[in-house]
Structure formats: C-alpha cells, structure tokens
C-alpha cells in the first residue's frame, strides 16, 4: 500500500494524543490479564522441572502423585504425540522434555489438582531417575570440537567444518572486496566482544486457562502476543483442527517478543483433556527466568578500517550466538543489521547459531541486532578516538541514505538516519558541558520492521458509530492508534470508534504482535477497511440520489456530490446513511486482508552522559536523549513511550542484566533481586525527539517504532563510559564489579 499521493495531507486525528480506550480498565484494576481468569470447577496446574543442566530421563514414576487425594491428572511427554513439523516438535519438546532434560528448569512432568498446595505436594511425589550428562552453557566452548553435544544431528549442511555439532547453522552477508577496502584504511581496529543473555523481563508471568471438553473442542485463555500463533502451535501439538481450538488473548502484561510462542499452554490443555476439568497454570517468576526464552548471549569479532578523515573503507564481523538447547535463527538478523547504518563499499558478516544447555531463546525486541550493533558501534567509536574525529560527524559521513546498497542486500528507499543524526547534532544535549569522571556516548541503531498477515473488520453500526475487530493484542496503546486511523479515514470523532481484539474464531489469521508491525500493518488494513466501507456508503448514497457511484465523494464523515456536474444534493452524514442501511441493502462493513509488505526500516541515534564512580564502579546516567525516525507518529505519547521504554531496557542490558550460570550449569539468579532490571531511581528523564520521515509503504507514512530503541543504548553507554574514565570494556553488562576491577587494573 503506497503512501497517499496527497503528501501534504493535514491530519485531524492522527498525530493527536487522545486517551487510550483501555485506560480506565487498566488504572482501576478491572482489566483482565492472563492470571485473572477463572472457570467453574477449575483446577490448578503446576510443572516439575529438571534440577540438572543436561540429563537423560531414565524413568518417571507418577504413581504416588496420582494417588494423592485431590490430584486429578498427571502428564509427562508420554501424553503428547510427535508433531510432523520439526520446529513445532521443538516447541513441544521445550514445553515437556522428551527423553532428555536439556537445561536447568526444563519441564519434565505436570500435575493438575484441586488446590495449589496439593499440586505442589504432588510434584514432590513424582520420582524421576536422571542420568546426568556433561553440559555446556558458554557459546565459545559449545562450538569447539569435543564439547558436550546438546542435540545430535541438528546441524545444517552449510556449516563449515571444524566446529562441534552444536553449531546448527551459518549465514553470510555482504558485498565488495574487503582486502582492497582495508588496504585503503589509515587505521584498522579489530576487537572481540561478549554480551550476556538477558530476559525480556515482562512483569506479568506467563498464565493460561485451558478447557478441553470431551467432544474434542477446546478453549484457551492466555496472555500472548499472538493468539493465532498459539492456536497453530497448540492445535498441532494436541492433534486438533484449528477450528476446534478457540484461543482468546487476555490483556497482556508485557511481552517484548517473549510471548510469541508457548510454554505452558499445551501442558494446560493436556491436563484439562486428561482431567476433564478446566486447568489454570500461572508461572512463578523463578519459572519465567529458568524456562522461558531469554535472548541469545554472544561472542563477536569486529574489524573496521577508517581513513584519517573518517571514511570507513571496509568492515567485517563474525558473530557467534547461543540460543539455548534448540536451533534458532537469531544470528541471521544480527549479521544483517550489524552494519546497516553505514554506506559501505566493502562489508562482510558471518554468523553461527549454537546450541547450549540453556533455555530455548525467544525473540526479544529487535532480536539479534543490539549485540551486533554494540560491537560495531564500539569499534567505530574507538576509531574516532584514535583518529581524533568527532563521532557524530563520522556517522554523518558514512550514514546510509536513500539509494545506499545495504550491508544485507536491499537498496534503501527513503530513510531517516541522516536526519536523525542532524537532529542529534543540533540538540543542546550535544554541546552541554561535562565534569570529571563524566563522558558522553553515542550510537546509531537500526531495525528492519515488519508487515505480515493481517485482517481487520470494520463495522458501521446502525447509529453511525464504528466497531473495529482486529487480531493483535494491545501491548502498549495500539487500540488508540488503530481507532485514530479509522477516525481519520472515516472523518468521524475518535470517541465514536471502538477497537476490540478478537479471538481466533472471530477473525482470520493475524501474525503475532511483533516486528514493530501493528501500527503499520493493522493500521494499513484499518485504513483500507475504512476505504472499503466508504465505497459501500458512497454506493448506497449514489443509488438514493440516482447518480453514478463515481459522482459521490467522502469528506468529513459525509457523502457529498463530487462537484456541480454531479447534481445539487445535501450531503448525507455517516449517521444518516447508517440509520437507513436496512432499506438500502443491509448492514455496512468494510474489511481488509493482506500479507503486508512495505514496512519501512527504522533508524535511531542515542546520546548519553554518564558519570562513573571510581570508588564503586557504578555508572550513573546523567542525561539521555533518544532521536528516532518514526515515520508518521500516530499517537506521539505512545511513540515516545516506545522510545523511552526501549532505551531503558537497553540501559539494563548495558549496565546490569545478565543470566549467570555456575560451573554446575545451573542458573544462579532466577529472580528480580539478583537479575537487576532498571528501577526508577537508576534513571534520569529520557528525552525524546521524534522525526517523521514518511514510510513510502504506508498510506499515512507510518513506520514501526518499538524495536529500534533497544539497539543503541548498549554502545551508547559503553562509549560514554570509555570516554568518562578512559577504559573501554569489551563485554556487557558493565556491572559495577567488572568496571571497578578494570579501574583498579588501570591503576
């Protein structure tokens, strides 16, 4: 769907900041989240998890648990079939271990009982015999020949020789001649980096309520980023037809990519099928950390050459990502995005996905990009320091722009990186004074954004108000943005529109809420659905007036004659048209189904001032500003909110958050006390500057917003710390003990 030709369109509703439709429910405690659902006769489900990092399950004896009074069902892998699709088999295996526990916390059995206390007691009565195997949790160790093999025969044929079987896939991107490029450089820097695995850290643990009836129908209520994806996975795992499993998405308490798959839902369905009762499972926070997807951890090498005047001549990266105990494709996105910000003649990236005895990674906001761009932006910054160049000017000199052949292949259309860099350069933050132990850091960031499968139904109610049915859970105000775009297109007030999120039996398939796709893709489908409804309404009015359909136009919520030649008719409002719809052909609706392409890539630039305490190694953020091209910002409050929230997740990643494993392969910090996400007192205000370079692939110019802002903070803070104390770390997080050690070593 191309950008509307009337580029100078003056928006009336889009670009304003109306209250979100679900606001009152969410400030009064009435909104129903995953754990808030109940059903008559409901049982409580609990899951037994592996205490070992890697172990063969020799046997499971559930007889004592089954005999406990109040226990209604016990399930193990033996209660599930074997799905044909290998990736779905992996999802099922991750929900309930099949023969081998692959990581600390891997599910091995589950019970449903009358109360949580009985369920917990029953778990203790399940006897599992394990044969403990050697384990591996570090990506570099896992790649070496001779490492413990997590899963056999999963490596694709394209993996180069010389690695262990844990290396499951390999990818390469780039163009140009590296040798020629590096020869042109006045300075070449090559560095190696590591980043820790981090968790999405949504405050709402996974929760679901499953109800299977003896006639084979099922209902599932759960917190998810995509009810249709849940249905696809669960129907396949349970051997059901999609039509017989209705999945309803509750309100969702954060996801950030982590709720794009299933962990407990098939288990609850199996327990419900076996017990004949509804079963609710709510994860504890300990389970969320141990058994749901964190992001990958990484080990990376980056080599960049630069001329004395700041032109990058060649760039190269090797990325090694471990994604836990199952094959993943995350390194591909890292390898594609690593150098996306730069217009390069010679660039090459290669990436490897690696198995370890850790939980199956799940998407996390711009999956794969933050760590790769952290490594690249660190080396660019070091080159600037070495050559005495201004880091912003160097970015401007090398920035990708319209017509740049990107490092991953496609040629960029209209993009906002240069404009974003110019905005940063002109901002007062850029020239504010700094004190002792203080430094200013900068990084660019990038994300592809996504469109995907989308359905929208738009009904004109008989009073002329508008009901929208869409299929993507509202994770941060999207109902407001969708309602705004419908109001804009139809020419009706915002408060005449109500948008609801449908269950899987009420609407066609929608991809999950991911890829920063909802405001772009659901918005696009909403606009087109509104246009279809307008066409119907104009057709009805044309018949009433006895003129051609083409002679009726739509303006300000009314059908009007297109000009003097069309005839002299009093405009008919949407209310009038709706009121008599029963006499003009029946109910009026518009709908639109699409696999949307045209998502506009998004760039951002972050600036941060930090002060490092040389006594403690603690980093205090003094000032933080986010510049980002949002395309058209439909609801600027929620665009700013994405930019601020993404930045703070990135800050957590840079400074404190990490999965810590002991030598025993067990996770040591499965709780918010020891896995430290940023709290209010850690942070300054996060200033935001929205740029609106229209996306040529959307009628209003909307891009995606949500993912790009988590990308720049990692290097922004590392570069700020390097400039504050003259010590550059090559690993994340830069937690106070690590930084203090580095300060003391320097002396």
């Amino acid at each position: 769907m191309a950008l509307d030709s009337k580029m100078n369109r003056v928006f009336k509703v889009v670009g304003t900041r109306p209250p979100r439709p679900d606001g009152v429910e969410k400030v009064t405690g009435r909104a129903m989240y995953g754990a808030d659902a109940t059903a008559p006769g409901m049982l409580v489900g609990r899951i037994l998890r592996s205490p070992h990092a890697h172990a063969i399950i020799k046997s499971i004896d559930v007889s004592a648990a089954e005999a406990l009074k109040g226990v209604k069902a016990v399930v193990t892998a033996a209660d599930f079939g074997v799905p044909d699709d290998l990736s779905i088999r992996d999802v099922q295996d991750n929900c309930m271990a099949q023969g081998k526990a692959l990581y600390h916390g891997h599910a091995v059995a589950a019970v449903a009982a009358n109360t949580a206390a009985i369920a917990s007691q029953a778990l203790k009565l399940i006897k599992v015999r394990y044969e403990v195997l050697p384990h591996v949790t570090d990506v570099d160790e896992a790649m070496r020949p001779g490492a413990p093999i997590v899963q056999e025969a999963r490596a694709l044929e394209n993996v180069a020789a010389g690695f262990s079987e844990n290396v499951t896939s390999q990818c390469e991107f780039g163009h140009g001649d590296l040798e020629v490029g590096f020869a042109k450089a006045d300075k070449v820097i090559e560095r190696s980096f590591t980043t820790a695995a981090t968790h999405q850290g949504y405050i709402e643990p996974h929760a679901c309520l499953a109800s299977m009836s003896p006639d084979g129908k099922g209902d599932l209520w759960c917190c998810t980023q995509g009810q249709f994806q849940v249905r696809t996975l669960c129907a396949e795992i349970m051997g059901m037809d999609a039509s017989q499993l209705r999945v309803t998405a509750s309100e969702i308490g954060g996801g950030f990519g982590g709720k794009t798959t299933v962990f407990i839902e098939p288990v609850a369905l199996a327990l419900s099928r076996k017990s004949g009762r509804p079963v609710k499972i709510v994860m504890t926070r300990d389970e969320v950390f141990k058994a749901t997807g964190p992001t990958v951890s990484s080990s990376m090498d980056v080599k960049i050459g630069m001329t004395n005047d700041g032109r990058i001549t060649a760039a190269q990266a090797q990325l090694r990502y471990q994604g836990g105990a199952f094959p993943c494709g995350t390194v591909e996105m890292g390898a594609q995005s690593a150098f996306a910000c730069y217009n390069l003649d010679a660039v090459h990236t290669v990436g490897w996905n690696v198995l370890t005895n850790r939980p199956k990674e799940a998407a996390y906001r711009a999956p794969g990009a933050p760590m790769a761009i952290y490594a690249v932006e660190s080396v660019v910054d070091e080159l600037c320091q070495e050559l005495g160049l201004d880091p912003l000017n160097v970015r401007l000199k090398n920035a990708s722009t319209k017509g740049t052949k990107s490092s991953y292949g496609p040629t960029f259309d209209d993009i906002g990186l240069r404009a974003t860099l110019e905005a940063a350069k002109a901002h007062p933050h850029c020239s504010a004074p700094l004190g002792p132990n203080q430094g200013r850091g900068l990084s660019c960031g990038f994300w592809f954004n996504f469109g995907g499968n989308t359905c929208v139904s738009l009904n004109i109610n008989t009073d002329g108000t508008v009901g929208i049915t869409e299929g993507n859970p509202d994770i941060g105000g999207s109902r407001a943005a969708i309602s705004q775009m419908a109001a804009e297109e139809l020419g009706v007030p915002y408060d005449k529109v109500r948008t609801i999120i449908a269950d899987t039996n009420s609407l066609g398939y929608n991809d999950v809420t991911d890829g920063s796709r909802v405001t772009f893709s659901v918005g696009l489908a909403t606009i087109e659905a509104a246009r279809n409804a307008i066409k119907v309404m104009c057709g009805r009015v044309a018949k009433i007036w006895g003129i051609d359909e083409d002679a009726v136009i739509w303006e300000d919520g009314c059908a009007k004659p297109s000009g003097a030649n069309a005839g002299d008719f009093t405009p008919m409002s949407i209310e009038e048209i709706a009121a008599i719809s029963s006499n003009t052909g029946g109910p009026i609706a518009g709908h639109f189904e699409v696999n949307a392409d045209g998502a506009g890539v998004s760039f951002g630039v972050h600036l941060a001032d930090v002060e490092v305490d040389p006594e403690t190694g603690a980093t205090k953020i003094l000032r933080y500003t986010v510049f980002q091209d949002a395309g058209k910002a439909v609801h600027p409050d929620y665009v700013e909110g994405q930019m601020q929230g993404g930045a703070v997740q990135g800050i957590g990643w840079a400074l404190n958050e990490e999965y810590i494993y002991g030598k025993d392969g067990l996770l040591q910090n499965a709780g918010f006390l020891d896995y430290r996400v940023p709290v209010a007192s850690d942070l300054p205000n996060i200033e935001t500057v929205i740029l609106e370079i229209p996306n040529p692939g959307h009628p209003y110019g909307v891009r995606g917003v949500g993912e790009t802002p988590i990308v720049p903070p990692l290097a922004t803070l590392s570069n700020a710390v390097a400039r504050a104390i003259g010590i550059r770390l090559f690993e994340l997080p830069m937690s106070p003990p690590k930084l203090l050690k580095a300060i003391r070593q320097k002396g």
Partner: protein
Amino acid sequence: MRNLHISTSVNGDQTEFVCAPDETLLDVLRNRLGLTGAKEGCGTGDCGACSVTLNGRLVCSCLVLGVEAEGAEIGTVEGLAMGDHLHPLQRNFIDHAALQCGICTPGILVAAKALLEKNPNPTDEEIRYWLAGNLCRCTGYDKIIKAVQIAAAEMRGA
C-alpha cells in the same frame, strides 16, 4: 492445617474470609475476594505489582499473610476511584500515557497515592526513590514520574 476465619476491612468495606495460615494476603485478595487488581509479578517482594496498603502502610501483599489482615484496614487499587470519579493519579496516568501494558499500574498507583499522602509536594528524585520498589518494564518510568507530578500539583490545588 485448618483454615482460619478473618474479619477485616477492604477499601472501607467490612469483609470476612477464611484462609490457610500460610496463604498470602495477595492470594486472599485475588482468589478469595475476587480483587484481581493487585498482581503477582514475582512473589518475593521485588516487583511491587502487588502493592496495597495495610493500616495505611504501603506493603507488598505477597509478603503479608492473609491472617495478618485480622482487624486491619486494607486499601487496594479497586478503592482508588470514588464511584465513577477517578482519582487524580488514575486520570493523569491515562491523560499522560503513564502506562503501556498496564500490569504494574495498579501497584504504582497505590504506591504513588501512599507517597502523596506523606509528601504532597515531592521532588522528581523523591518520587523515583519512593517508586524504586515498583518495577515497570515498558515505560522507562519517565511518563510515570511526570504523571505523578501533575497529579500531585492538581491535588495540592496548584
């Protein structure tokens, strides 16, 4: 363990319930009284999503036993609005986009109300330290701090 009978007050209403001696106040509110506004984000007192007041004191209800409510006054998010009239904090959270997913919002509202009762004119830093026990993963806190400031000014009649 036999269940115990407890008489208490929740949001000003006299309330009775039975609960197990080891049952948390959070579980009582959610599972026995149907007040699901308080959320369990961690169950260990680290996230603040279950914040309520117990005799006017801000607590994590996951760290309080149900039996401790005997004779006490409990305040939850469900008691913030007066009928259909939202509390200024609630209204300003909506008007200034201080929530995204909304799961932490009930706890933050209860905590912010407790702050403003003690300190009607807090600095940004005082708000940030008071709310440091309430995790929000979506907003980066910026709009939350601003909404609390605006609500505080409104409540002071400024």
